[in-house]
Each structure stands twice: as structure tokens, then as C-alpha cells.
């Protein structure tokens, strides 16, 4: 059973090798087949973990601390499933987006470059969710960054090259900072295994080494997650890529380093998770939500707007920190699971909604030439499905019922009020309002009754993929219970004070 974890990495990796090596004209078909296999396998693993509990696989048969362990609990399963679901749909979109034109030309290089890189990236993402070894995770982070950079430049556009170069430098700095922190952790605990470290750290005294390594790891991974004010590289990088690439960068890639932060914070550094630490990150998250949303409102191009919206929504993810860490006023010392699951659920709903939005923006560029907001006039008439998809995704991002975004916000606001931190509830509500402003800005142009001058019909199936993503971000609100049960399978909190304990 535990071999399934290895398979979750190997299937996309074999796909990457095959598509890279043979790379025939019909490479997209092979790539799509491997994507389907990878995604459905990941969903099956998540189901199996929800049913039977956590999985452990000792690579090489040595076992930690000498060897490397793969370990998956409910949180890993949730991330694998998110990747699987969104990954399949983005793969379908990429298959249609990079289709040859009517005369059989165009997109040939993009197609040949995209599939090996994307499957490699997927494999590295899955590795990040199932590996339990701090150095192995460093390699996963490196692979994710490198594949992400390469995916941005496949269009060969100049602005994409500039943005990708900046992303590469920032990503390298981030992962080096992480590596330095990991080296200190090894000096402190003499192991690289996250679970062993978590056990040891429960007994260890707080030391300078731990605090410095916490700072280095946090800053390194925050840079890669693009938390305000370290977000400056994200909007150009995410908006200049081809639409399916923008979608998977915003929906999946930034979430991987966020997941790592959660693992390290609530596992290894649980003693350092003080109220102040949580409040500081709450302030950063607030700045991200307000700053990112205001920037999104000021943009004049659709893709830049959607990219700044990602900056804002990364803020919501970090808001789970003050909501999970027990606040002064609360009578219990346990982690607040409502705040935690709300944040994680937001991750899923944002992944679905944001990929729908980026695909909608890509369809707009395909059919109307560019994505200036002024150019969107008449979009609702010409592209009703795409406009509908964009609007539905907007509903989920705003957090209106019954969307997934609503459920996530509901849990987070509940956690904020229960723990006596009403100010975070206000931030969540204001963020929702600001989101509404930029979504309606787009819709206002879209519904103007003007016939766009240069209109070219996009592939209808591509519109349906965007719509499916948007609909999913809406209807997951009805199935939230299953997702929360899955998160509780194998608690992510190994050292929860007063909470349930690890294996």
C-alpha cells in the first residue's frame, strides 16, 4: 500500500521522461494521458488515506534517520487531491490551448516544451507533499522552481523572459535561505526527518539556533510563496506566461511552499509558535489582502489584475496562522482546528477559482487580441460561457454562499470570533468586498453592449474547461465535510499542546 506514494511521484516523472525523450508531433496526447493517470491516481491515494489513515514508505529500506521516509497524512492527501483535480483540468486546458491552428501550424514549440516540464513539475509537487525529509524537500523545492521558470519562458516572449529571470533569482535566494535553515536544524537535532525533528523539538529547549533557523526557513519559503511584501516578482511572472501556465503557477505552485511552511511551523517549530508570531503574520496577511486587492483594482490589464488577486489570496492563507495558534483570551491551549481547516479549504477553492480566471483571461486574449480591460467590451455577448466562468470564479473568490470560498471564510471568521480576535474577521470581510470591486470592474466592461472589432472564436471545449473549474469552485462548498474529515485523518499537528497526538 505504501508503494502508492512512490507511484504518485513516478507516474508523472515517467511521463516527463517519455514526452521529453520521444517528443513526437503528437506529444500532447501522451502528456494528457499521463496527466489523467497522475491526477486520478492522486485522487485515489487521497481517498485511501481518508479511509485507512496515514502511509509511510522507507525509501531504500533504511528508514529515518539514516534514510529518507515518504510520509502522507490527511494534509498531504488533501494537497495531493487538490493537485490531482486542478492538474487534470489544467492539463485538458493546455491540450486545447496549445492546439495547432487550423492550418496545422503554430504552438509546436510550446507543445513540445510544455508537457515534459509540466509533468516534471507535477512530480516535484507531489514529492513535496509526501516527502518527510528536510533536504529531500529542498530538492523538491528546487525542481518546482526550475520547472516553473522554464514554463514561463516557453512562449519565447521578451517580457516573459525578464519576469522569469527575476523569478529564478528570487527563487534561488529563497531556497538557499531555506537550505541554510535546514543545515542549522541538522546541527540541532542530528536528523533531517521532519517527524523525528518534531518529536525531538518537543523536548528541546528554545535556543538561538532554532530561532535563526526558523527565521531563515520562514523568509526563504515566504519569498517563494510571495507573501507581501516579498510578492514583487509574482505579478509579472504569473501574468506574462501562457494562460495554462499562469493557471498552474497561481493555483498550485505557490501553494507548495506554503504547505512546507505549515509542516515546519506546526511540526518542528511548534514551541516557537507564540501569539506574537501569529499576530505578526496576521499583519503581513492583512497587508497582502489589502495591498494586493488595491493593486488588482488599479490594473488596466486582466491578467495583471488576476495575478495581483493571487497576491491578495495568499494573504488569506497566512491568516490561518493567528487563527490556529491559541490566542490569549481563549480558554484552551489546543490549536484551533477550525481556523486551520478554513485556511486549507481556502487553498482548494482558490486553486479552482484562480485557474478558471486565468483560463478565462487566456480565452479573452485568444479571441479579442489582448487583455486590456477597455477591450473587454462586448465580452458577455461574444463569450457568454467564459464570462459566466469568470463571474462564478469571482463569486468563489469573494466568498459568497454557497461557494467553496464561502465555507472557507465562514470557518475562518468563526475561528476569529471564538478566539476573541474579531479584527481578523473584519479583514476577511473587507477583503471580500475589495475582491468584489475588481471582479465587477471586469464584468462592467464585459456587459457593455458593444461589438468587439476583431473577434475570433476560441475553441468551445476550452471554454467548457474554464467553466468546469469555476463550477467546481462553487460546488465544493456542498462537500466540505468530506474534505475536513480528510484533513483530520492523521493529524498535521504532531506536537499540538493539548491536542491529539502523533503516531
Amino acid at each position, binding site marked *: 500500500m505504501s508503494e502508492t506514494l512512490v507511484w504518485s511521484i*513516478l507516474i508523472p516523472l515517467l511521463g516527463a521522461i517519455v514526452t*521529453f525523450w520521444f517528443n513526437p508531433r503528437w506529444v500532447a496526447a501522451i502528456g494528457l494521458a499521463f496527466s489523467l493517470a497522475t491526477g486520478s491516481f492522486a485522487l485515489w491515494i487521497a481517498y485511501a488515506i481518508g479511509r485507512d489513515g496515514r502511509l509511510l514508505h522507507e525509501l531504500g529500506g533504511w528508514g529515518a534517520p539514516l534514510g*529518507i521516509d515518504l510520509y502522507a497524512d490527511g494534509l498531504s492527501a488533501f494537497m495531493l487531491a487538490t493537485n490531482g483535480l486542478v492538474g487534470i483540468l489544467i492539463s485538458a486546458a493546455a491540450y486545447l490551448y496549445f492546439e495547432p491552428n487550423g492550418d496545422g501550424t503554430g504552438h509546436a514549440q510550446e507543445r*513540445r516544451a510544455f508537457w515534459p516540464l509540466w509533468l516534471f513539475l507535477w512530480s516535484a509537487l507531489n514529492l513535496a507533499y509526501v516527502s518527510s525529509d528536510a533536504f*529531500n524537500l529542498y530538492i523538491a523545492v528546487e525542481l518546482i522552481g526550475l520547472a516553473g521558470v522554464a514554463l514561463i*519562458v516557453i512562449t519565447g516572449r521578451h517580457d516573459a523572459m525578464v519576469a522569469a529571470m527575476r523569478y529564478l533569482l528570487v527563487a534561488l535566494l529563497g531556497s538557499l535561505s531555506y537550505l541554510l535553515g535546514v543545515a542549522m536544524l541538522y546541527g540541532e537535532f542530528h536528523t533531517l526527518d521532519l517527524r523525528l525533528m518534531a518529536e525531538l523539538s518537543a523536548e528541546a529547549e528554545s535556543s538561538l539556533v532554532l530561532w535563526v533557523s526558523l527565521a531563515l526557513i520562514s523568509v526563504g519559503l515566504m519569498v517563494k510563496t510571495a507573501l507581501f511584501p516579498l510578492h*514583487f516578482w509574482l505579478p509579472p511572472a504569473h501574468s506574462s506566461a501562457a494562460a495554462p501556465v499562469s493557471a498552474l503557477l497561481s493555483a498550485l505552485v505557490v501553494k507548495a511552499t506554503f504547505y512546507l511552511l505549515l509542516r515546519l511551523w506546526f511540526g518542528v517549530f511548534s514551541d516557537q509558535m507564540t501569539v506574537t508570531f501569529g499576530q505578526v503574520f496576521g499583519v503581513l496577511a492583512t497587508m497582502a489582502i489589502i495591498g494586493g486587492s488595491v493593486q488588482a483594482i488599479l490594473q*488596466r490589464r486582466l491578467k495583471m489584475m488576476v495575478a495581483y488577486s493571487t497576491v491578495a489570496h495568499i494573504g488569506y492563507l497566512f491568516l490561518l496562522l493567528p487563527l490556529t495558534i491559541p490566542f490569549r483570551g481563549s480558554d484552551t491551549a489546543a490549536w484551533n482546528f477550525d481556523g486551520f481547516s478554513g485556511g486549507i479549504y481556502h487553498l482548494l477553492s482558490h486553486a479552482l477559482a484562480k485557474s478558471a480566471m486565468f483560463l478565462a483571461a487566456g480565452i479573452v486574449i485568444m479571441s479579442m487580441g489582448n487583455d486590456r480591460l477597455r477591450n473587454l467590451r462586448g465580452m458577455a455577448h461574444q463569450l457568454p460561457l467564459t464570462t459566466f466562468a469568470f463571474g462564478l470564479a469571482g463569486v468563489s473568490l469573494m466568498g459568497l454562499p454557497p461557494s467553496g470560498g464561502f465555507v472557507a471564510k465562514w470557518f475562518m471568521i468563526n475561528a476569529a470570533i471564538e478566539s476573541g480576535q474579531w479584527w481578523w474577521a473584519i479583514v476577511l470581510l473587507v477583503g471580500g468586498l475589495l475582491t468584489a470591486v475588481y471582479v465587477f470592474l471586469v464584468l462592467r466592461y464585459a456587459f457593455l453592449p458593444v461589438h468587439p472589432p476583431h473577434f475570433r472564436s476560441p475553441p468551445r471545449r476550452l471554454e467548457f474547461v474554464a467553466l468546469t473549474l469555476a463550477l467546481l469552485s462553487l460546488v465544493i462548498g456542498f462537500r466540505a465535510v468530506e474534505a475536513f474529515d480528510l484533513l483530520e485523518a492523521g493529524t498535521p499537528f504532531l506536537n499540538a499542546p493539548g491536542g491529539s497526538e502523533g503516531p
Partner: protein
Amino acid sequence: MPTGRDRAKAAEMAEATTPWETARSGRAMRLFTGVGAFLLAIVLALVAVELVDREPGGLTRAALDSLDESGVENPVTAVLLNYRSVDTWLELGVLVLAVMAMFALQRCTNLTQVPQIERGGYVLMRMTSVFVPLMILGAGYLLWRGTHAPGGAFQAGALLGAAGAMLRLTSRDAFRALNGWALRGLVVLSFACFAIIGLGFMLMNRRFLEYPSGQADEWIFLIELVAMLSIGAALWALFVGAHPTEWSSEKQPRTN
């Protein structure tokens, strides 16, 4: 009077600039960086001092104790190719990914279109003829040495890559003769072999990359041998493919 088009252009340029580029106060930025680096250095020094005081340990003991089972005599090789073989496998993946990224940047899938470099002078040509065979020999030696002393596939592969670079500089690069399929196959070979070997063990009811007992040394040597070839090929391809001029866009027709 700025026209609407001018304003749009200015807005676009403002979008494209970063906080660094707009910062007029380059001096303040440098001061900030300098002070920051200085403080970081002090903190790191304090951490180092604190870590030195700890009792020595780590996994050295455990790594040495299991050396007999690992099938190699050198503890470093044992860590790289047995205890933490997955890390090494994925590092080979980083090289493959780098070559993929190079191809994505050049918008091509082979190196047959790379323009040749002018032939070097007499000294360079003669030196290359002497050095390249020696480097290949040296690579083989490093590979063999890796089983019982520092050395191994990465060092040997680096030497092969350097030999390739020398050949390239004297315009005798055989790589241009390889078609895309062969070149990409050579680069991806060790990564694929490593995965398939690990998978084979897993299908025989062991863990992924858990060598059958007593056979570890043979498998490790096989992996190292293939890894050396792939690393050499990847480094060579990166050196040749990172040609600064845009050679692919003009030579490569933008069709299928």
C-alpha cells in the same frame, strides 16, 4: 501635451519596473544591503559558535555502522548512492530539467542547428588533442575510485563535460551530429535507469531503491557508470546550447 497612447506606454513601463529599478537612492539601497549582510553574518557566526559547543554526533556513527550492508567502502558514496540514493536520483533530475529548460529557452529540441565556433589557434588545437583523451581516462579513474574513496559519477561526469566543452571550443563538437532523439536520450538515460532499477526492486516486494542484499555494489556501480555518461552529456549540451546568439529562431521553422 501627452496623448493617450503616450500615457498608456508610460503606464506599461511603470508596470514593468521593479521597486529596485524605481529606487533612485541607489546609495541607500547599498547601505541597506551592506548593513543587512553584516548583521546576518554576525547572527550566523553566533549560531556557528553555539553549534560548535554541542556534542559531536549526527548520523556519522550510524552511517559508518551500516557501511558493511551498503556495499561500498566509502561512507560518502554510501550516503549518496545507498542511504540517500533518492536525493542523488533527483539531483540527476535537476540536470535533466536544466536541459529541458535550455531547450524551452532556445525553442528547439536538438542541437544540430547550433552555429559552429571558429577553429581555435594551433596551441589550443594541439592541447585539446592531448587533453581530451586524458580527461576521458581521468573520468574512468574517478568513477572507479568512487567505490572506496572520494570521487564518483558527478566528478567523472564533470570531467567528461569539460572535455566536451574543450571539443566545442575547437569546433570539433561531435554533438551537432547527434540527432535530437539520441541527445535527449543520453541526457535522460541515467535518470530513467535509476528510476527503473528502483521500481524493479519495488516490484520484487522491496522498498523503492532497496538493493537486494549482497548485490548493492554491482547495482551502485552500474548506476554510477550510466550517471557519469548522462552528467557529461547534460553539461556538454548545456555548454553548447547556451550559445548567446539566437540561433534557433532563424534556423528553426516555426511549423511542425
